[in-house]
């Protein structure tokens, strides 16, 4: 008797799924007509993605303001919104995006291996990375800054670490961690690296370190959550241009993304994407950074 009921349930579920799938197909035709109006050069990545009506995008799932997967189950943030602008330009509906979590250390690998079609994940453009992949953009220019306790007046900038007494925390393998190594006297006694910034914040609260350093937008996220405890020490001391990672040899696709970004600058969708996400933390957006077509 029990078995029968389970079987019936399963059958009903399959039926419902089938119906749902039908519904999806129906709506596809509707949005698909918008997609078909776009035509891309034969054999290009754009044409392939448009034909497939599906795209895989790598982003961070743990970066407030840029790519944070919350209770909704979908990542939210500035990177995500910028990626959506590109997907829209490809003529693919938003719900056909498959989001793939790409923490810092796998970003090159997923592009090279073709696991994802593009990566938008607070991805700083630099020359080492350009050896394996290519960058479109930048679409935002962040800068490294230092987070200290509110009552701390001894740290005023990166040079405060030169005398070898102040300890600083960052995330392992990140660009800011490399940058701050140039400013500390002795890495072994002054630098702590964790896998997430949350641990750094706890270490700062607990007094094991005197400062946390990374891109200003990330630090502003922590200040937004706890204004009574933290503040920034001084001005940004680096420029971190965030780009969109694509396959190294795919220059057509890179040009397409660059065109799309420029279009988004002029039609206001870029600014809106910012205001809806990271802009809420009070970070300055500034003027659109000029895309770099190298």
């Amino acid at each position: 008797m029990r078995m029968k009921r389970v079987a019936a349930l399963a059958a009903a579920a399959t039926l419902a799924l089938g119906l749902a799938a039908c519904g999806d197909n129906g709506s596809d035709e509707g949005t698909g007509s918008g997609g078909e109006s776009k035509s891309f050069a034969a054999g290009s990545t754009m044409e392939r993605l448009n034909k497939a009506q599906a795209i895989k995008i790598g982003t961070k799932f743990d970066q407030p303001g840029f790519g944070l997967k919350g209770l909704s189950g979908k990542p939210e943030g500035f990177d995500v919104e910028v990626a959506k602008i590109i997907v829209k330009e490809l003529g693919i509906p938003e719900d056909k995006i498959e989001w793939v979590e790409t923490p810092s250390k796998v970003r090159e690998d997923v592009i090279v291996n073709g696991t994802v079609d593009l990566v938008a994940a607070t991805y700083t453009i630099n020359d080492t990375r350009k050896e394996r992949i290519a960058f479109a953009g930048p679409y935002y220019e962040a800068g490294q800054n230092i987070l200290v306790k509110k009552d701390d007046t001894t740290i005023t900038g990166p040079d405060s670490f030169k005398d070898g007494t102040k300890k600083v925390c960052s995330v392992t393998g990140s660009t800011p961690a490399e940058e701050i190594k140039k400013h500390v006297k002795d890495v072994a006694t002054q630098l702590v690296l964790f896998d997430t910034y949350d641990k750094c914040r706890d270490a700062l609260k607990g007094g094991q370190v005197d400062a946390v350093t990374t891109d200003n937008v990330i630090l502003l996220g922590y200040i937004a959550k706890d204004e009574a405890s933290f503040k920034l020490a001084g001005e940004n001391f680096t420029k971190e241009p965030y780009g969109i990672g694509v396959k190294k040899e795919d220059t057509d696709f890179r040009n397409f993304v660059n065109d799309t970004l420029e279009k988004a600058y002029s039609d206001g969708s870029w600014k809106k994407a910012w205001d809806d996400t990271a802009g809420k933390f009070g970070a300055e957006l500034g003027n659109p950074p000029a895309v770099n077509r190298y």
Partner: protein
Amino acid sequence: MSVLIDKFDVFAGGFWLTLQICVLAAIGALILGAIVAVLRISPVPPLRAVGTAYVNIFRNMPLTVVMFFAAFGLPALGSNADFLRIPGMDAVFTRLGTDLPYFRFALIALVLYTAAFVCEALRSGVNAVPAGQAEAARSLGLTFGQNLRYVVLPQSWKASIVPLGSVIIAMIKNSALVGFFGVVGDLSQTADQLTSAEGYAFIPVAIGISIGYLIMTVPLGALLDRIEKRQAVAR
């Protein structure tokens, strides 16, 4: 694979730091483990209970959790593990004496965790000594301490050396976790550094650090094999 040659100094530095933490943790775990083993086989029931409780807690808890407690729990209790700044020792093992406590925290976690397994390896050795030996010693009027020192432990050593070696090998591999709890520059954190900050492909780097661990574990394993063979002859 050029990363192995280009970045040899980075790998070598990582190897050196991992070796340091392993040597220190092995010493600590052997001492603490021996103490707990004595507790577990002691004739006094409350001491036995303490030893058993220790083993039950630390053998059954994931090492990551122990690391979390050490790295984030101790600071919350207001300790920076300064008692490990042992004068003299910190001249050789420079990380012991730094203001940054994470090397000490990781060491504490590794020692606490491994000591439980060391204790059990020692105890299995003690259990392998025929009961008549201890009874004979007791009937001769030896105290518990003398009994252990002169009769039981010298014989149990033979039976426990091989499992003890396996425990230490496991500990060396477990030490890969310390790089994720604030220790900068050990072998595993080196891999992270090379792949994500400097953009090297993961596989060659992973091969490089694997070689680092193998340099530590394979000779230890070979040594154990030799000891085992020699024991077979002695019996």
